[in-house]
């Protein structure tokens, strides 16, 4: 019943696809460029999320500082912000005239929007909460006695993290990475608002779908199916152990 909720729409989508012209659409430069950009951006964003998000989850779960609950709530915000507003907020902060972006641009000429880095930043902003919250939850449920044992054996905090804690919460980190990556891959609103939409530079698959939808409905469905195919392939191929096998 719950599954059918997911499966039915997908079947419906698939049955509306222009199967005969699929090959042609997929070899079009629009689709290939978008696929490349999506892949690079979502993977980079996921890596950044892991590098920044896991330590953040740690700090939130393990240390007690004033305002911890507020930070915890703030971290979830990008999830509730409508993506367009999130993108706007990013522009206000990191855009050419933004609070940080402005001085940065004036000093170095560096511009985040309209570049791949802008796409990555937008993806990170939107996807990171998923990783942080998932890892946070797992850390809170963790039995900490093996960690104490490891400390008596002389392991540093980083070493404990790497060899004891992370393996123990691996299924949840895996879940978090999946959520994070999937969210980054599907990101639309914040990306288009912050990074813009230029074929071959910042146009990701979802942006390509949206743009194509205006002129070529079949093409849009086809690109959506490409998106679906990519993610299903990746998710099925993920070894169990990275996604939930202890």
């Amino acid at each position: 019943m719950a599954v059918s909720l997911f499966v039915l729409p997908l079947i419906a989508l698939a049955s509306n696809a222009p199967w005969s012209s699929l090959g042609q659409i997929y070899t079009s430069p629009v689709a290939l460029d978008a696929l490349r950009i999506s892949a690079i951006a979502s993977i980079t964003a996921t890596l950044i999320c892991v590098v920044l998000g896991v330590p953040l989850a740690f700090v939130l779960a393990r240390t007690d500082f004033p305002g911890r609950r507020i930070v915890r709530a703030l971290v979830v915000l990008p999830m509730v912000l409508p993506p367009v507003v999130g993108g706007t907020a990013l522009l206000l902060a990191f855009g050419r005239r933004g609070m940080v972006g402005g001085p940065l641009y004036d000093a170095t000429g560096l511009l985040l929007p309209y570049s791949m880095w802008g796409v990555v930043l937008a993806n990170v902003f939107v996807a990171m909460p998923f990783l942080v919250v998932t890892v946070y939850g797992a850390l809170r449920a963790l039995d900490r006695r093996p960690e104490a044992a490891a400390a008596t054996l002389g392991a540093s905090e980083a070493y404990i993290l790497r060899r004891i804690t992370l393996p123990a919460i691996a299924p949840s980190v895996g879940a978090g990475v999946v959520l994070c990556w999937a969210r980054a891959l599907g990101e639309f609103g914040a990306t288009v608002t912050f990074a813009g939409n230029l074929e071959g530079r910042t146009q990701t698959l979802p942006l390509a779908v949206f743009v194509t939808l205006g002129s070529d409905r079949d093409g849009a469905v086809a690109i959506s199916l490409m998106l679906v195919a990519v993610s299903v392939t990746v998710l099925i191929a993920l070894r169990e152990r990275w996604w939930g096998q202890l």
Partner: protein
Amino acid sequence: MTAGLSADFMVVRSLFSVTAGFEVAPGSVLGLVGSNGSGKSTIVEAIAGLLPVSKGSIGLEGALLDDAATATFVDARHRHVGVAFQEPRLFPHMSVWENVAFGIDARSRRSQSPWRPRRSQQVQPSGSTVDLRSMRLRGQAADHIWSLMEAFGLSELAARRPTSLSGGQAQLVSLVRALASEPRLLILDEPFSAMDVDVRFNVRNQLSDWLSSFSGPTVLISHDAGDAFVLADQIAVLEAGAITQSGTPDDIRRRPTTRFAASLAGTNRVTVDANAGVLSIPGSPLTLLTWDHTAAGQVVATIPAEAIALYTSQPAGSPRNTWSTTVESIQQMGSVVRVGLGVPLALAVDVTPSSVTELGLVPGSAVWASVKATEVNIADGVNM
């Protein structure tokens, strides 16, 4: 502050606090005994650096590890305290080998010593026939750990995961892991409780060997007085969060100062009136002789339960401390049988099971009891 472990602290946890003071010289073993919930494991956590002290201090090798007064606190990982916790606390996603090598491995990460990076996992310690997939150590260190594992009978289990170990196997891995971590101080919290007779025998021998070449202090916790008394040089008796007696195992056995220490050591405590080596039992015609002629007035005499001999008839050439009495109770305790004697003097006597059969003892049997004057001690004070 001594060269070994010197501890004198109070540690507080929600409903409970422990106050303890003791010193353990380098190379010697302190046996920490006490009833369930008396605070033994709490002391372990304090020494290991998992629970900060609220008062007092803990020092090792002349340096302070934890001091409430100066707010010194050395982190657990810098204390080099090898702990075999009461529950094995193995790392579930590592093999037995990795568990045991963890300490060496973890420390080598920081000191950049003779270990290699992860990629070279294929090397096996010499002599290994097991596929140790995720080994990281090489050469000498691996050989050292491997021979330790062999000595303790773990080599066959090296590639296993803790989830596929039996209770006793897991406990043994935990013990060897602590030994292998090159500790400066070793703490063993009930290390033998899950082991069977044979394994325990072998492990205790191996551990004795290991300890004889270990230069650091050791704290051994055991509810089995036997283990503690055999392995330890000093015993501290913990009751309800405080040390009530400490001394050599023989001290404790001969002169337990509290009821608990007496029951732990299997020693009888009797309040008597002493006068030049003659002890008269209040309310009873019986008198006992003791070797200790110094005590006078009301004192507590202690008599080890196994120092009392039982006979079905009056023993020939009878020693002076001989009296006739009846058996009140018979209770098997581990490998000995504890016989309770009745009037004129309620005493517990430990005998072997076959003596029970031989003497035909049942509750109500009339027997003769006898104890040498050399086994009748005077405890320091009266505090039942």
